[in-house]
């Protein structure tokens, strides 16, 4: 158990998690504040016979990992703000073709070039709806190095299980905070490998025919089954189709395979929620501040709790609804103008008891930003 405690930044914890999960191939493009991920992987991957490539732009990085994934590799790219916008078309391609891949977005201040070196959580809705067309996607986040590591492994696992792109929506604060990471031993965290088809050579393989459990076993490009992959609406052979029944079934499958497994995909952390009268809901870097406030106020006897979301999408509506049912007031803590706030209000049907404590000026959200809101709620004035 010696030598397994590291002191590093969030971006490095993400790299360690990806390697633990079995990352084979990374393509990226330099952008602040995610560049350390690419730099580290350019060093680490070739040393173990795996591949890193710096592509000519953000969207070709996204395209390259999808191409590599189809050969059976575990793949990832990493970016920030503007780069995440550029990748969106190819993320949609991965959604439509059900190609497993992991996209790290280290959020920075936006819109546009915004604040390249500052923290923000402004991409929550873009991660959900950034690519065009109706679809579902999985988005995970974390507030500290240990969880960045764990969620990165989870991202690969969920991506392979549900054949979908998974977005790791970290932020600049978490990415650049240096703190402890206790490296899990091999086998300590479950690692999911790709489900391959058992259909033998010479038998018709249907790449897009879901099994009874909704899963679609894959066949690697270069293997015995030759099939078509397209971003067009397609039938069970992967061939383009405009047949309304086929298109309907495809659309339902793409959404249901994720929305229908929300419970299984939900990762959440609860602090002092059992007897809480007031509940903070937060995620990512903001949850660090929220936890500080909760622990501090508990010492004074205030019944404050924290729900830290690690799965942002599909939104864990049932858990949030249940936890908020007997709560007097809910404060959503985030570094945007209320992107998760809207979701919370939507699911608990009692918008009057939901408040927002936020920060949007590029500085990190402080305990006072939350305490000021709590004082107003408690009728103590700002």
């Amino acid at each position: 158990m010696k030598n397994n405690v590291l002191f590093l930044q969030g971006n490095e914890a993400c790299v360690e998690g990806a390697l633990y999960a079995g990352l084979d191939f990374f393509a990226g493009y330099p952008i602040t504040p995610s560049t350390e991920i690419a730099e580290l992987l350019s060093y680490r991957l070739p040393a173990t016979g795996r591949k890193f490539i710096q592509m000519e732009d953000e969207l070709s990085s996204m395209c390259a990992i999808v191409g590599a994934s189809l050969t059976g590799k575990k793949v990832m790219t990493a970016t920030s703000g503007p780069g995440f916008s550029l990748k969106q078309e190819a993320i949609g391609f991965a959604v439509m073709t059900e190609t497993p891949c992991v996209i790290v977005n280290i959020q920075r201040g936006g819109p546009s070039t915004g604040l390249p070196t500052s923290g923000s959580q402004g991409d929550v809705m873009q991660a959900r709806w950034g690519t065009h067309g109706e679809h579902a996607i999985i988005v995970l986040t974390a507030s500290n190095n240990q969880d960045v590591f764990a969620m990165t492994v989870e991202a690969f696992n969920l991506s392979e299980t549900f054949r979908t792109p998974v977005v790791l929506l970290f932020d600049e604060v978490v990415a650049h905070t240096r703190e402890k990471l206790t490296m899990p031993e091999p086998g300590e965290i479950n690692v999911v490998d790709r489900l391959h088809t058992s259909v033998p050579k010479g038998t018709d393989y249907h790449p897009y025919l879901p099994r009874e459990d909704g899963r679609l076993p894959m066949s690697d490009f270069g293997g015995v089954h030759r099939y078509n992959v397209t971003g067009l609406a397609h039938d069970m052979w992967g061939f383009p189709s405009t047949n309304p029944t086929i298109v309907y079934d495809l659309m339902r499958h793409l959404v249901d395979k994720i929305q229908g497994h929300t419970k299984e995909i939900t990762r959440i952390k609860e602090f002092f929620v059992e007897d809480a009268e007031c509940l903070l809901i937060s995620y990512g870097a903001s949850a660090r501040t929220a936890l500080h406030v909760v622990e501090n106020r508990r010492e004074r006897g205030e019944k404050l709790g924290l729900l830290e979301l690690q799965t942002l999408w599909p939104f864990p509506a049932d858990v949030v609804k249940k936890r908020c049912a007997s709560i007097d007031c809910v404060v959503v803590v985030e570094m945007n103008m209320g992107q998760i706030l809207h979701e919370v209000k939507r699911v608990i049907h009692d918008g009057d008891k939901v408040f927002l404590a936020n920060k949007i000026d590029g500085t990190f959200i402080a305990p006072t930003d939350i305490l000021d809101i709590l004082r107003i709620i408690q009728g103590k004035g700002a």
Partner: protein
Amino acid sequence: MAVKDYIRERFFPHLWCPGCGHGIVMGAMIRAIEKLGIQKSDIVVVSGIGCSSRICGYLDFHTLHTLHGRALAFATGLKLSRPELTLLVPMGDGDAFAIGGNHLIHAARRNIDLTAIIMNNNIYGMTGGQSSPSTGYGDLATTAPYGNIDPSFDPVNLVLGAGASFVARTTTYHVTSMINILEKAITHKGFSVVEVLSQCPTYYGRKNRLATAVDMMNFYKNRTTPIGSKDKEKNPDLIERGIFIQEERPEYCAEYAKLIEKARSQ
């Protein structure tokens, strides 16, 4: 094997217009592969968006029909992770020279072992006849109703300048030569670009006094000439066809293998 053993008959009839040149290119690709004796499961075809890119669905290889202009980016990831596979990347002129221009020059720069087959019909066919970076000066298109004033790319010099190690041009009239060139391009270790002049009578021809496929193929016959021919000296407007460059240079995946050895030893 017969040509039909390389196609997915289930997905026919194809969607190309009568007289379109792309079927000739597909036929030549199949014949080149058959002559080379490459196993079907060792071939991956990656295409973008457009009429040319639909070739993917019809061929019985591993086929990946991607995004407009991005075929080479997908192909780069695929090739780098499985270097032993043979990758063919059919593209159109809008696909390769406009929206995908960046990927074209960078694939050439890396000299990664892909074969880009650019079916140049001087027009955006799938969307109904808009001008492309290879539409000639004064040509008519649905987005150039007064005549096109954008100078066109010289694709051969573009990719030569970017570092491609195999560059050739052929036409749908010169099928035997096309098969021969494709064989050499596929065999070549490095980034190969084959520009194929491929007629679009429907959207380019009709608007530009070349109303039928026959007119257009006659144009290819009469207005092209082998590289370095005497005819070219007499008439500099003739378009040269043949192999412009075929040079052995360090190939990206091979260089990557060396990089891995270096990284492992440190």
